Every structure is written in C-alpha cells, then in structure tokens.
C-alpha cells in the first residue's frame, strides 16, 4: 500500500469497513510510515473538532410556539379522551 492509497482509506478504516486483508495492509503501512500516521492523527483531530461545533438551534420564538402548540395538542388529545 502506498501513502497515496492510504489517505483514501482512512474513513473506511475508522468506520471499520475495510476488508480484512486491506485492513492488515493499512495497519502495516501505518506502523512503518510516520507521514501517514500523522495524517491519520490529523484526520481524527478534524473529526473531533467537527464534533465540537455547536449545533444549530431554533430561534426562541419558534421554540416557544412549538411548546405552546404542544400544550394545545395535549389538551385536544385529552378531550378526544381515548
């Protein structure tokens, strides 16, 4: 496995979807190549940083409207009375 091939397999490797022989070749290359080891580390760091981005959220008026709608919905289902 070359470095150029290695960098294309990182996501598959991290997802655990590489076939056994490719995974073995990947691990062997990783053990011998500081450049690819570094690439993998940075790829993981990138994923971690993405995971730390704040989630988008609804504006508070819309959120309030939804909670009000929920209260109204609850009352309706109560009167439907199952």
């Amino acid at each position, binding site marked *: 496995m*070359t*470095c*150029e*091939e290695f*960098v*294309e397999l*990182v*996501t*598959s490797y991290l*997802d655990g*979807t590489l076939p056994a022989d490719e995974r073995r070749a990947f691990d062997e290359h990783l053990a011998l*190549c*500081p*450049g*690819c080891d*570094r*690439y993998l580390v*940075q*790829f993981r*760091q*990138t*994923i*971690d*940083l*993405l*995971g*730390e*981005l704040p*989630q*988008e*959220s*609804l*504006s508070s008026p*819309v*959120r309030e*409207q*939804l*909670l009000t*709608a*929920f*209260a109204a*919905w*609850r009352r309706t*289902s*109560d009167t439907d009375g199952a």
Partner: protein
Amino acid sequence: MVGTVDAPERSDDRALVARLRDGDEQTFADLVDGWSGWMLRLARQHVQTQSLAEEVVQETWLAVLEGLDRFRGESALRTWVYRILLNQAKRRGVRESRSVPFASLAPEEQGPTVDPQRFQGPAEPHPGGWRQFPEEWPEQVVLTREVHEVVAEALTELPDRQRAVVALRDLDGHTSEEVCELLDISAGNQRVLLHRGRAVVRAHLETYFATVPSTRSEVTDDV
C-alpha cells in the same frame, strides 16, 4: 456527542412516545432541543434560506404531534421524524426549485482527496509516497474561536451533499447506516462523500496551522 436523545433504542423510543402522549412537556422540549439542529441542517438541503428551513422544522414538529398516534415503532422514532421532515422539505424545495439529487456521485465528487502533487511520481524513488510528510499540528488542538471559525467555514464551503453527510455524521453523531437511510444513498457513496468532506476540512486546518506560530496559543487570550 451532543444532544440528550442520541441513537435511542426502540424501547427508549416507545417510552419517549408514551411520555409525549401523556403530555410531558419537558420530554417534548428536550426532543425539540436535541433534534432541531440536525433537522435544520437537513431542511437546509432543500430550501434556499435559513428562515425557510426553520419553517420546515416547525411544520415537521407540528406534523409529528398530529401523527404521533400513528407511530407504531416499526422504524426508529428519529427515522420516522426524518421522513416527515423530508416530505415537508421537499414540498418547499419543489416550490423553491432546489432539490439535491442524492442518487449518484458527480464527477467532481470522485478522484483523489489529497493533492497528487504531494506524492512522488512513477520516476521517483518511492512512487505514491509522501514527497514531504504533513506538517505536525499543535499537540493539543483545542477549539479556540479561530479554529472554530476555520472548521465552520470549511464546512460552509463544502458542496451540499458533502456538507450534509459530514454534518450528520460528525456534528450530529448519526451512524453511517442512519445517514444512508436519511439521505437515501448507498453505503459506498456515503463513505466517499464523508471522506471527501473530512479531507477538505483537514486541508483547511492544515493551511491554518501552517500560518499560525506554535507559540500563538500562549498569547491568544490577549488578542
């Protein structure tokens, strides 16, 4: 991962739905707070503006309440909510004439994710090997405001499909199976889009760290 209700088991789903049917407002508020982030991002794939995306999410929650009695737990609650979202978004999306076909990969979504110039050519000693190893990054990469901006901006610049997959996987913590189901793409395409998107974000970070002196972290607070 963020969010209080990630990847619920089916039995958790049933408990959750039972609490909603009982009118537990806190459960509904937690669900809205936990899920609206990924819902907004997905809605945004189909409509032009953030405020339209917000309308789509709002309509989706209302439709969820209306349809809650029909939820039988045959799919995960998250998937069921997502399908409703998709219907709402597509109705808008058609009106806004911006639907993103997800079935197959465009030519620009294929090919190498790292500049081929960084690897040795066939005539060099180690064909396909690094010409020069990637530069080391700071040992502890923390999400300073600047790094945050670099990552957020890289994400914004990604093509729609890549951004959707990266956001769903890495920001919202969905599994690859969930993303395939949510976006109706094959496992192979999901992986290609995710890998490409991540590689672009890594490259942005690489460029950024190359311009920042390593001592910078000690003085950021003063800037």
